[in-house]
């Protein structure tokens, strides 16, 4: 019975975080719709796409959650490998735009494009490796990339190496660009992205020590990381542009009856 509770907890955590991400995605689309500046509009749209791919990766990777596993863990990684550099690129460009001296951040204007192309190539490479591997694509996935042919682990290793490089270089560029701008909204946006990353790291690591002591418990607790990640992604989206709240004044209506709080 205890295991059932853990599964229910895990499934609830994934569903709850998914709802948050879906709402954040909706908000990002709204921002993309109302913002006028092309760079800011693009950032909002890429945020929506990135959120969608994050949710896809989450659902795709949750093999222990019933009805949500699609038994294809690489698919989510492929999608996020393509969308991550494009999302980071749009965010760095927005941060550079608000830097009054328009400085190039860690040569991002050139290297950002290069790394995006490399990321797309790495996805194509890993697909080719998966298809041409002995035993076919399904066997490669089942063996988590392990194969008797030396080029299969090398190809898939390169794919994950690119994903790591994209994450580290992109994060560094984003942090430097945010430090150079005076725009508080962008700084908050980057801070929230950083905190969501903490949630992701929590999810990826916390189960390791706990599962040795109490099998299954660490895995369930790690899903709290999903909720943290989703929450801060939502906060990041809400930092795309500062929002005011409207209230209607008593005894007034229409155009003249609004007050900002």
């Amino acid at each position, binding site marked *: 019975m205890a295991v059932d509770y853990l599964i229910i907890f895990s499934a609830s955590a994934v569903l709850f975080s998914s709802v948050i991400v879906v709402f954040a995605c*909706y*908000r990002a689309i*709204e*921002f993309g*719709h*109302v*913002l*006028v*500046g*092309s*760079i*800011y*509009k693009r950032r909002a749209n890429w945020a929506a796409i990135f959120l969608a791919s994050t949710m896809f990766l989450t659902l795709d990777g949750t093999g222990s959650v019933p009805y949500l596993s699609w038994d294809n863990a690489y698919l989510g990684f492929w999608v996020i490998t393509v969308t991550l550099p494009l999302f980071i690129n749009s965010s760095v460009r*927005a941060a550079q*735009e*608000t830097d*009054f*001296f*328009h400085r190039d951040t860690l040569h991002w204007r050139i290297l950002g494009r290069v790394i995006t192309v490399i990321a797309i190539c790495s996805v194509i490479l890993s697909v080719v490796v998966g298809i041409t591997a002995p035993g076919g694509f399904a066997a490669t996935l089942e063996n988590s990339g392990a194969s008797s042919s030396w080029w299969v682990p090398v190809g898939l290793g390169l794919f994950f190496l690119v994903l790591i490089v994209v994450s580290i270089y992109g994060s560094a560029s984003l942090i430097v660009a945010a430090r150079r701008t*005076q*725009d*508080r*909204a962008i700084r908050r946006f980057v801070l929230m992205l950083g905190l969501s990353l903490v949630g992701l790291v929590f999810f990826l690591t916390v189960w390791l020590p706990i599962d040795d002591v109490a099998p299954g418990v660490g895995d369930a607790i790690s899903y709290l990381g999903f909720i943290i990640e989703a929450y801060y992604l939502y906060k990041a989206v809400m930092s795309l*542009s*500062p*929002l*005011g*709240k*409207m209230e209607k004044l008593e005894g007034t*209506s*229409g*155009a*003249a*009856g*609004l007050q*900002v709080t």
Partner: protein
Amino acid sequence: MVSTGVPSLDHILGDDGYPDRSSVLVVGPPGIGKEVLGYWFVRSGLIQGDYCLYTTHRPVSDILRDMKGVGISTERVPEWISSSGSPIKCDLKDATSISFNVKEAVHKNMNRRVRVATDILSPLLVLNPLESMYSYWSQLLADLKRQDTVLFALAEDGMHPQNTLTTMEQLFDGVIEMKLYEDGLAITPLFRVKKMVGLPPLHGYFRFSVSSTGMEVVPHGR
């Protein structure tokens, strides 16, 4: 009166637009569309034969790309003082030279109506103390108003302490605020005219939208 370049905004401002010899400040967060108001203001001036000067910390190519993006023809362009792509450079570290170049360009066109659009207020406020910027802008605006000039300035919301913007707003004849608001589940772009010389207070909020065919402003709630 000087047309804003947006007929529906002209209508809101008493059918005529911005007052003569005035200075208008538009405040809003990055990306909301402040610049578009400036582009239409300049575009309207170019069509009417006014002398138009655009002083910007951005490259000219960026501004032209943005103008095309919102459906504004770039066949006629203003004179530029910019960070790159113009004969007169805009060096943010040298506020005095910017002021000198603006005044010189305006004085060369004494017999025409002049429109000046600029986005350098925020960077100069970031780089210089508020006290010195207050007297700098006070002097610049006073000098420009000696001629038939309307100055349109942009200020970035979220980059300055609130008291800084409030202080600077006092120098301008008109202040327009643009912002996004949570309206239930939707996000709505609205603006309000905080003040405009010669006009009674406008308490309403106005919804605005930008498309390739122009900018539309309608009272919010209708």
